[in-house]
């Protein structure tokens, strides 16, 4: 088990290296440079060139890459080209909102989606099933920002239940946090629930067709017992997998909800940084989100054995 964990953890390294290289190349080969935004509207070409020189943007690419990589390995993420704030600090400031909303979303989604999926699979081809499936497909078909706007209009402006925008960290208390985090999380939940409920249903349907479910029924257990004790645990691995890979989707969605609800999170930070060509920030954030993704999936991989004793490492 330990050996396997170690091997899996080590396998993360080449992937992260590739991500790093990829992101670096992607950015440095792109037009547009941060010197322009620093210089502002009235700068002359000569001033631009001077700023570029100062920022080290005129060095050969590979040199820039290795300098960055070296710094990275020493734990130095660099300094924003625009605001001169250390990138590590920027990320530390802004990871909280994103992570707490992402986790809240995952929580709500799992609490909603799994029962929904179970219900749909159990009442296969009945009304509930059709309702769940319709909802799932709908969840996919509406752009996140539209959902966000509608939620704001209804729950904040019309009903006044939640603030329109902003974010209060959980350290300021659970209730204030929930007041600001609920709407963004609910907005994201629509996609995530759609994905997870569908997957739960599909896998549960597979499992419900298995012989051991017939055995469980033959024992005279109630339907609840059959569904939860026998079926769900067997369907858990693929469902978990979807929850893990769905994390990438979540990050994508977070970028949009952060914009709509004005949440100072990582997603917005990245978009701003991309639009401003703030290379150190973009590189660090994408590397970080990729790392989170890999990490979450690693944890999920390792947790498989909790659900399925046949998987042993």
């Amino acid at each position, binding site marked *: 088990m330990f050996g396997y964990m170690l091997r899996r953890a080590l396998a993360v390294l080449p992937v992260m290296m590739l991500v790093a290289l990829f992101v670096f190349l992607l950015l440095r*080969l*792109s037009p547009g440079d941060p010197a322009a935004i620093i210089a502002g509207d009235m700068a002359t070409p000569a001033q631009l060139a001077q700023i570029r020189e100062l920022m080290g943007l005129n060095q050969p690419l590979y040199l820039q890459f290795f300098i960055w990589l070296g710094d990275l390995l020493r734990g130095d993420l660099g300094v924003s080209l625009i605001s001169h704030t250390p990138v590590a600090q920027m990320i530390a400031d802004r990871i909280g909102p994103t992570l707490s909303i992402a986790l809240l979303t995952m929580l709500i989604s799992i609490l909603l989606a799994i029962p929904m999926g179970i219900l749909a699979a159990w009442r296969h081809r009945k009304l509930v099933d059709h309702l769940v499936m319709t909802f799932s*497909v709908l969840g996919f078909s509406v*752009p996140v920002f539209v959902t966000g*706007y509608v939620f704001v*209009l209804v729950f904040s402006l019309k009903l006044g239940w939640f603030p329109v925008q902003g974010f209060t960290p959980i350290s300021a208390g659970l209730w204030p946090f929930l007041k600001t985090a609920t709407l963004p999380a609910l907005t994201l939940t629509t996609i995530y629930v759609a994905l997870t409920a569908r997957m739960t249903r599909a896998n549960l*349907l597979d499992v419900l067709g298995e012989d051991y479910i017939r055995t469980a029924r033959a024992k005279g257990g109630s339907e609840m017992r059959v569904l939860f004790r026998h079926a769900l645990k067997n369907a858990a691995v693929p469902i978990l997998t979807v929850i893990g890979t769905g994390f*990438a989707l979540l990050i994508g969605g977070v970028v949009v909800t952060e914009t709509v609800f004005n949440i100072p999170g990582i997603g917005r930070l990245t978009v701003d940084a991309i639009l401003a060509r703030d290379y150190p920030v973009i590189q660090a954030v*994408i590397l970080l*989100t990729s790392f989170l993704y890999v990490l979450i999936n690693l944890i999920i991989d390792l947790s498989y054995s909790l659900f399925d004793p046949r998987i042993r490492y």
Partner: protein
Amino acid sequence: MTEISKIGMEGAPLGRAPRISQLGTAAKVALAILVAILLLTAIAPWIAPHDPLLMDPLARLKGPSLAHPLGTDNFGRDLLSRIMIGGRLSLMIGVATACISVGLGLVLGLIAGFFRRADALIMRLMDALMAIPSILLAIALVALNGASVGSVIAAITLPEIPRVVRVVRAVILSAREEPYVEAAISLGSRTPLILFRHLLPNTLAPLIVQGTYILASAILAEAVLSFLGAGVSTETPTWGNIMAEGRMFFRIKPELILFPGLVLSLCILSVNLLGDAARDMLDPRLRKSAR
């Protein structure tokens, strides 16, 4: 005897071409909607009431009228015409993304699934690609290449490829263990024949499902990119940028978001439903257990 050339191309395993009559009601309705949308967008240039680019800023954000059945947008352009024409590009982006990512993913997946040596390399690359949040990758790519249709398609396509590769690889890995593949080897069939005629057709059903899913999510992704300011120019209307541009007016003139949103949702809904139905029809196992 022309069967051999036909099989594997038509994607109808077990020899039965899927028939419309086999579809469920929901899928039939979906098909009808999709065909209607396709038809309308196909002939849009001829039947659209106005030039979708023709501006009249002095008559902007007007409500529905006889001349402009859905009203006008913030440039005074006819919303109905824009939605009709916009469908062409949105669908084009969707279809192109689906085709390219499925095509490339198929090739890479086949290679990874069949040739052990290439497998590790390809899969590590794909893992890396998967790990980068796709929307961020897409924004970066669009910023990189400029906001042209081509770069939007590339940006949406790239993150989808690893998903396809994984599906194809998994199918190939399990299919190559099938006795009929061993039988083919015993019959002296060469690798290309086995790869393309025995293994490839197995990937069809999952790819159709994956393809429809990609198609739908590409249309959505395009909308989100426009929302974040990295979409195609307003000169080439798409459902996505019509909505993204209209979002400023969400509370003033919600039609700007609602109508394109409705068509988009209907379209995605239909594609998804059809994808599910196609899977049910193509996968004999699912057909039996009546998903």
